């Protein structure tokens, strides 16, 4: 059994102290790392709840329920921020990725606590596979919003659509890594390939915004 609340308390404490001590942008970024970790903790509870409700087994929950819950929870801190403040679109895009970093980090720590860190190969696959996948999902929403920010109707419906894109991407990844052989290898490589393709596709835009 993994006591994820205990792990969360241990990881969140230094972040919380740093948030109190710092000011300005570093504080905002640390808050979103903590937000991502909190989203991950809550996702595991909500996914378990829906799995019990629908009678899904562990595999069914991982393929069909977790991607939806995790991506919705990951965007929740950003939605709250958007509703309370009026941040600039670049700030929002960056904090979306930072939230994803917090989420992926906490998930990886929980994974390592349950499965051990003895095998370097497994930890690297985990880091550049699932860890990177969460960052790609954040990047999908972040880069998409850069195009859809200017008008309110585009921003609202566009965010919904981009979260849907992240959900389906996450679900496809989960299906592939649940297999063995070639499908598993393709699944593990997809996040890194996606990062490279995204960087190539939007290089000029990144340079302009110093993303």
């Amino acid at each position, binding site marked *: 059994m993994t006591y994820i609340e205990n792990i969360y308390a241990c990881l969140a404490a230094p972040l919380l102290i740093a948030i109190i001590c710092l000011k300005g942008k570093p504080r905002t970024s640390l808050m979103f790392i903590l937000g991502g970790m909190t989203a991950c903790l809550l996702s595991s509870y909500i996914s378990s709840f829906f799995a019990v409700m629908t009678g899904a087994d562990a595999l069914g929950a991982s393929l*069909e329920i977790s*991607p*939806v819950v995790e991506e919705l929870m990951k965007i929740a801190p950003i939605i709250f921020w958007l509703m309370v403040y009026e941040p600039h679109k670049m700030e929002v895009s960056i904090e979306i990725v930072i939230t994803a970093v917090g989420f992926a980090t906490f998930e990886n720590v929980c994974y390592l606590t349950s499965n051990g860190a003895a095998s370097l190969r497994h930890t690297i696959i985990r880091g550049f596979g699932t860890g990177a996948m969460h960052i790609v999902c954040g990047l999908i929403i972040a880069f998409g919003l850069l195009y*859809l920010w200017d008008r309110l109707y585009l921003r609202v419906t566009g965010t919904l*659509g981009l979260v849907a894109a992240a959900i389906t991407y996450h679900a*496809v990844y989960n*299906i592939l890594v649940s297999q063995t052989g070639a499908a598993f290898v393709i699944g593990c490589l997809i996040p890194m390939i996606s990062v490279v393709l995204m960087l190539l596709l939007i290089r*000029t835009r990144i340079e302009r915004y110093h993303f």
Partner: protein
Amino acid sequence: MTTETLINLIQLAVTAVCMVFALHTAVKRESREWALLGLFYALFFMGDLYWSLMLAFYGNTPSYFYVSEIGWYSSYLFLDLLLRQLASVEEKEYRPKALWAVPVFTAAMAVFYMQYGDYMINTIVALLMGFLLWRSIRGLAYTGSGHGTAADAARRRIYLCVLAFCVIEYCEWTASCFMSKEDVALLYFAFDMAVTLVLILYISALGKAVQE
């Protein structure tokens, strides 16, 4: 390889190529319209991919949650945003009375599909299809009535494509309700192929609309 698998593979290949083309054009021209079309293709592709992978690896369709549907119906959302983005201010204010037949039609079809499927999903589809049909028919009526400029007329192709897409999707869903009959199943696959063809036509239609 079954007919369904073959058609799914063709549709996956088409949407993947169109997605890359549209997103590349969006970045190259810094065009929001192409970005919206690219996102439409991306979501359609990922909905199809998830569905096909579930069939290939587990031999059945998703049973606990609507992941593929989230992909497909969100793709309609981006198509709707594209039509909204393209329409001129005058066109948005143009509302012939015949347009009110659209919500009546989509509501009636939703009630029919509810005999076979989920209430929530069919309500969402009715809403999204209602918006798509409304905007495409309004665009066709506006540009056909001689009100608009040359730029307005250039949008006729994209409106025709969206209208064709919606009509074929409705035909496909209706056929899927009677899939147990062999000839209806063939008709279903024919509609699926027709959807794939319309997906290709979006590229040239948007090219024409944005160029003008």
